[in-house]
C-alpha cells in the first residue's frame, strides 16, 4: 500500500513537472494520460482544457495504477475526491476545467462495475422553482451521459434533482449562486 502510494506520487510529480515544463496551452499531457487509462477518446475534452496542469497531475494518480480502493475517493490529491461539478447559470454543460473530474469518475466506475452513484442535480435560487427542478435534472443527466460515454454503464446511476431546494450555501450573491449550481456525485453505500 505504501509502495503503491509512493509510486503514484512519483508519477504525479513527474507528470506535474512535465506538464508545467511543457506549458502547453491545450493541455495535451492530460489527454494522453486519460486516454491510456480507459481507452475512451477524450480529445474533444482536452482541446478545451486550457489550464489543466494540476488536473493532469491528479489524473495520473488514477491512471497510474490498476488497483483501486475506496480510500481513493477520500484522497484529497485524487480527482475522485472531487465529487461536485459546478455549472454556469442556466447551463447543463460541463465546464472545461471540470472535464478531468468527470473523466476520473467515469474511469473509476468503469473499473468498478459493482459501484453505483447517485447524481444529485442542483441549481441556484434564481427563477422558477419548477423550471429549476427540471434544470437540476438536466445537469445530472448531462453528467450521467458523459460518465457513460467514458466507460460507466447505465445501471450504475440514480439521478435525482433537488432544483434550488437544497442549496449548498445560503445567500443571494454570485458567490453563493456559483456554489449552488452543481451536480453532486454520491457513491452509494459508502
Amino acid at each position: 500500500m505504501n509502495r503503491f502510494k509512493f509510486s503514484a506520487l512519483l508519477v504525479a510529480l513527474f507528470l506535474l513537472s512535465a506538464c508545467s515544463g511543457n506549458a502547453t496551452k491545450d493541455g495535451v499531457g492530460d489527454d494522453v494520460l486519460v486516454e491510456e487509462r480507459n481507452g475512451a477518446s477524450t480529445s474533444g475534452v482536452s482541446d478545451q482544457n486550457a489550464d489543466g496542469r494540476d488536473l493532469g497531475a491528479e489524473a495520473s494518480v488514477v491512471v497510474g495504477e490498476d488497483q483501486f480502493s475506496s480510500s481513493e475517493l477520500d484522497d484529497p490529491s485524487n480527482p475522485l475526491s472531487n465529487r461536485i461539478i459546478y455549472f454556469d447559470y442556466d447551463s447543463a454543460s460541463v465546464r472545461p476545467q471540470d472535464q478531468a473530474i468527470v473523466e476520473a469518475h467515469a474511469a473509476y466506475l468503469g473499473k468498478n462495475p459493482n459501484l453505483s452513484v447517485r447524481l444529485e442535480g442542483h441549481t441556484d435560487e434564481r427563477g422558477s422553482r419548477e423550471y429549476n427542478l427540471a434544470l437540476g435534472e438536466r445537469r445530472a443527466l448531462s453528467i450521467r451521459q458523459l460518465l457513460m460515454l467514458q466507460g460507466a454503464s447505465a445501471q450504475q446511476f440514480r439521478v435525482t434533482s433537488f432544483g434550488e431546494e437544497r442549496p449548498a450555501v445560503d445567500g443571494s450573491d454570485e458567490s453563493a449562486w456559483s456554489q449552488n449550481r452543481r451536480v453532486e456525485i454520491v457513491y452509494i453505500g459508502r
Partner: protein
Amino acid sequence: MIRKWLLKLGILLAFLPLQAQALLTIEITGGSDAALPIAIVPFGTEGMKAPEDISAIIRNDLASSGRFAPLDDQDLVSRPTEQSQVNFADWRLLRSEGLLIGKVSSQDGETYQVQFQLFDVYRGQQLAGKRYQVPASGLRALGHQIADVVYETLTGEKGVFSTRLAFVTQVSASDGKKRFALQISDADGANPRTVLQSTQPIMSPAWSPDGNQLAYVTFENGKSEVFVQQLQSGQRKSVASFDGINSAPSWSPDGRKLALTLSRNGNPEVYVLELASGELMRVTNNAQAIDTEAVWSPDGNDIFFTSDRGGQPQIYRVPANGGRAERITFEGNYNASPDISPDGRKLTMVHAVNGRFYIAIQDLKNGALQVLTESGRAESPSFAPNGQMILYATEQKGSGVLAAVSVDGRIHQRLSESGTIVREPAWSPLKK
C-alpha cells in the same frame, strides 16, 4: 403618485409548532389614489361582549385590500348602530361614499346575533343589509363574509376575504437544520394551520377547485413526489412517485385530474393524471426541452406551461387533450411560472429582465405585457380567485416574504412573517 401608508395587523401564530411566537403581518406598501372613502362605525354591543371585534375585522379587510380608505374612528361624526340614528347629511360632509353600521348581541356568550347595514351616503339608501346568528367561534369568519358583501356591493367584484392562502415556510431549527412546513391561513394571515411538516423541502402547493384538498411536492422520500391531501382529515396519498421528476401539480377545473410534470421517460414532460383511475395521458412530447409548470385554462380546454424548446423558458399553450403547442410569450428571454386569471383573459408569470425577476401580466387577446413589480426577486405568482390581485413570493432583507399586487399594478401589499422564510404562495378558490 402612489401614496404610502401602512396597516399592520399582528397575529400570534399560536398554532405553529415550529415557531411558537412568529408574527404575521399584512402591509399595504402602495395604495391606489382611487381608494374609496368609507365610514365603518364600530358595531354596537348588546348583552355579552363578543370575543372578536367584527367591525375591526371588516375594517382591516377593506383597508388591506387597498381599494378602500376607511375613515379614522375619531373622524366619525356619530356612532349610529341602526338606521334611525343615521343623519346622512353629516356623513356627506365627510365625503365618505359608504357608511357601514351594525350591532352584535348575545344573551349567553355562546350564540351571537349580528346585523349590518351598508348605506350609500349620497342617496341616503341602504345598499345591503343582513342579520346572522353565529356561534362565538364563527364571528371572525362572519366578519370576513360581511367584508366580502361590502366589497362586492361597492366595487362590483367578488370579495376574497373569506378565502385562504397556502404557502411553504422554512425555519432553521436550533440544531441548525432546516425545517419546512406547508401551511394554510385565512386571507388576512390569521388562523394559520400546519398541513405538513418535513425536514425536506416542500414545493408547489395547489388548491383543488372545491378548496378541500391540496396537491403538493415533497422530497421526504429522497426525491420529488406529488401528494394529494384532504385538509379536513389530514389524510394524504402519493399520486406520482415515478423515476425522475414528479412535480408541478395543477388541478383541472372539474377537480378530477391533475396536470403534472414527470420525467419518467427521460425528459420532463407535462402529463394529465386522472385521479380516480390513475390513468396517465402525456400532453407534451419534446425530448430536448424542459416542459413544466402546467396550469389549466378556466374552461379546462387548454393547458399553459413553461418550455425551453425555443432555447429559453417561455410560456406555451396546448390543448388539454394533446396537440400542437403554441407559444404565448415573446417579450424577454425568460418567462416562466404561468397562472391564468379566473376569467381566462390574462396570464401572469415571472418575467426576467437582465437577470432580475419580475411579476408581469399579459393580455391573452392582444399580447400586451405589463410589468407589475419593482423588486427584481419575485417568483411564484398566483391570481386571487376574483382576479383582482396577484399573490407572489419575493425577498426582503434576505428573507422570503409574500406580497401581492393588483392587476393594474397600483396596489401593493406585503405579508411577512418575522424569522420565517415564506414562499410558494397559492390563493384558494372562492368558497362555494
